[in-house]
């Protein structure tokens, strides 16, 4: 039986910068029969500030939300769409499972009896089940025929291995498998797990500048017409800073990249026939509607 019930950890971006991800995910989830329930009274995972301040704070912040989920939903897996939240929740979970002493320490920090029994999943994992995939295929009414897409995972979903363990850390393929069901054509490229620097855009913005550009350039060189992500931080970073990358290219006399960036769920939703304003693609910096519509118009189902 495929897992279809999830405890939802939205994270601080779900209703703001990551809104398009939430909308498109929910659009798809509804059609695939997922039951996604928000964890009551969840709190911020601490981002990078929590564990920078102290190991204990880094464990306690995610653990509190996971404990609340366990109290309400038992063993139901916790779904964290944001890769930053995902890695923080996973890390606390892995720490708690290291030994009974560690679990007791963390339980002491949060003042709750958490058993660390439920799994933590990222946005891709619910789609990895063969049953879900066959249901997904059957929902595709407007395939994105031939849309060449570079699947971008970033760093936090695949590393470190002992925390994530969900796909290969150098050459993951989950998103490719999912998106190929929509009719899109994933391209082979080399920078799918390179970091985009999103987490440090605030404090050391200058140093992070080259990172977005080289990822997008590698995708374009591999023949991609679009980039797909599964993380709101990556999305905002790549989408918002593509213009900056193009300015730098202009200085070097290179033509601008025209690579819309999508959440992979937006592409699935699009292949389900979702309207542009229901599935988030109007909320982007780099214009994103046209590319999808063009692909969909080619792929009318017989």
């Amino acid at each position, binding site marked *: 039986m495929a897992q279809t019930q999830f405890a939802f950890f939205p994270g601080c971006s779900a209703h703001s910068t990551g809104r398009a991800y939430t909308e498109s995910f929910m659009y798809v989830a509804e059609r695939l029969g997922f039951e996604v329930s928000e964890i009551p009274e969840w709190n911020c995972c601490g981002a990078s500030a929590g564990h920078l301040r102290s190991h204990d704070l880094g464990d306690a912040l995610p653990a509190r939300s996971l404990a609340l989920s366990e109290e309400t939903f038992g063993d139901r897996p916790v779904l964290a769409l944001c890769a930053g939240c995902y890695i923080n929740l996973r890390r606390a979970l892995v720490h708690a499972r290291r030994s009974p002493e560690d679990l007791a320490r963390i339980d002491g920090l949060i003042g709750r009896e958490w058993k660390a029994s439920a799994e933590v999943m990222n946005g891709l994992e619910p789609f990895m089940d063969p049953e879900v995939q066959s249901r997904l295929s059957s929902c595709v009414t407007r395939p994105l025929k031939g849309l060449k897409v570079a699947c971008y995972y970033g760093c936090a979903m695949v590393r470190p291995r002992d925390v994530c363990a969900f796909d290969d850390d*150098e050459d993951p393929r989950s998103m490719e498998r999912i998106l190929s069901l929509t009719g899109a054509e994933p391209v082979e490229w*080399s920078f799918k797990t390179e970091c985009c620097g999103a987490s440090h855009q605030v404090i050391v913005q200058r140093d992070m500048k080259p990172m977005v550009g080289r990822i997008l350039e*590698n995708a374009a060189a591999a023949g991609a017409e679009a980039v797909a992500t599964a993380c709101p931080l990556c999305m905002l970073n790549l989408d918002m800073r593509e213009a900056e990358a193009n300015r730098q290219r202009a200085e070097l006399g290179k033509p601008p990249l025209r690579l819309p960036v999508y959440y992979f769920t937006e592409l699935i939703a699009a292949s389900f026939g979702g309207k542009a304003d229901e599935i988030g693609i109007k909320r982007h910096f780099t214009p994103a509607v046209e590319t999808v519509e063009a692909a969909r118009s080619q792929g009318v189902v017989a």
Partner: protein
Amino acid sequence: MRIGVFVCHCGSNIAGTVDVERVAREALKLPGVVFSDTNKYTCSAPGQESVCSAIKENALDRVVIASCSPRMHEATFRKMIAEKTDLNPYMLEIANIREQCSWVHKDREQGTRKACDLVAMAVAKVSCDRELFTTNLPVERRALVIGGGIAGIQAALDIADAGFPVTLVERESSIGGKMVMLDKTFPTMDCSACICTPKMSEAAENPNIEIKSLTEVESVSGYIGSFDVTLREKAKYVDYDVCTGCGLCETKCPTKKIPSEFNQGLSTRTAIYKPFPQAVPSKPTIDAEHCKKLQSGKCGVCEKVCPTGAIRYDDVDRVTTQRYGAIVVASGYELIDWTGLYGEYGAGRYPDVITGLQFERIVNASGPTEGHILRPSDRTEPKTTVIVKCVGSRDPNKGVSYCSRACCMYAAKHAHQYLDKVPDGTCYVFYMDVRCAGKGYDEFYMRTLQDGAIYVRGRVSKIYPEGDGLVCMGEDTLSGEIVRVKADMVVLETAMVPSRGSDVLASKLNVQRGPEGFFTEAHPKLRPVETNTAGVYLAGVAQGPKDIPDTVAQAGAVASKVIGLFARGQIESNPMLSKVDVSRCSGCRACVDVCPYGALGLVQANLRENSRKVTRTVCQVNEGLCQGCGACSVACRSGALDLLGFSDEGIMQEVEMLCQ
């Protein structure tokens, strides 16, 4: 019981600190002791003579000699008793009153008291001793060599040249191993095939050597001098007695697109094939997996064209059993499968990222590119080549923790060969250390630097395609600069790992393997080619990574061990072995679990118990395999197992005597 005690002065070595006369007097008070005496030097000829005559004159049935360490003269005195008296040589115990008494204690009174105690303990033990007998086990003067690489060939030739028959078993269809795939050998750059193929044909022509290709060891039983080995010779589908090796079948076979193993997948072969022209045996076999006739029944071209009618589609595996006196393991190595480990190097997706062995084939004049350096993707000459060392080696995270020893040198060789053949090319070598300890090795490395190879100290972190080339990212750790080298071809010098199936072979032979999977020698310094299973020897990379000169030297050493064993013709068994009392044994298997030599097994035995005949499972000791460590006798809870020479009772009597 008539025990005699002989106390040695050892000049003043013992007598200086120990009152030996008092020790002898005190000994007479011990139960069973009927005679005691002292000697100036017991080990000298007059000393030995006096002990022997005392044994005879007093009809002694047990002897204690209080002298130096048993590690020094126990064997001497045993031999003396065996040769000069009627006493069984195992009715002897040594009390060590020199190394462990007179030499380490200054106080005469304390030394003397301790010597008395040590003699008393020895007397207690000797009273439990039983007569033991050595047996001479015959040695079957025939050797089995497992693995037909250069190590196995050399060992087989050396043993055969001494006049003893050898069976050389090779899993593949030709002997030659890895060496015959190499182009040149460092540091002299002589042609590898030119020195390896003559050895191969020498082996084929030697009347004492039987080469069995496509053959694997099925099972092994027995012990040194008489191993019974069952071999499985896979069906070849060609009758070698009839086949002349003309090669017509190969030219006509319609299935031509099979990647060639010999050329490391860089060219193709047919379904009936010889792996390479100089193969030994020089006759083809059919690859059943790819043969149309054997898969679907349709084809039969080779049978039609064969001028001698040698094709046998109904051929089957042949299983034979033969007795051997010694076994040489020369099972070699293979290269680590880097594609499953290094996603950052493309995991095998980029055709122009190749292994060192593939490079050997590319640079070889009889290889797929006829010796022109052309990269696999588009058959163009790479103008920039990057060589990456330690791929898999020294990498406990992804590969193996050890150094593969030969790569530093063959990386230099590859750089040299590349720059030689592509004079306008650029060659980078990414390295961590350059290890060139060997005759002429460092000179060779220096020459490669003079050839223009650019050595960059750092591990390549990532390889990715850009345009029609490959970018190698790394740090030049000597300058601290991050470097990105755009290359046309990348050569990965990958780690050597034990050949597949080593684990199974090890358990068949009951030979230990180290944590890295290579076979373990009996002693790293002093017994480098023997194993802990007597009669099984190691040659070549099976024991650990090494280069060709070391491999050949080791093969020679193995041969001399085997020849020495065969020259003796028989081996004397150590009688101080485990012994089982089946009436006490409940067959629980605890002993089998702890025996490091596989000397214990469970058998069905017919016993009489309470005047009833019963059949039940009990343990059995294989005296050829048992080395007398005694681990089983402690693991055995009921005391059914005991160690002769160090029996439970003997040790108990020693303890009791000391406690009195």
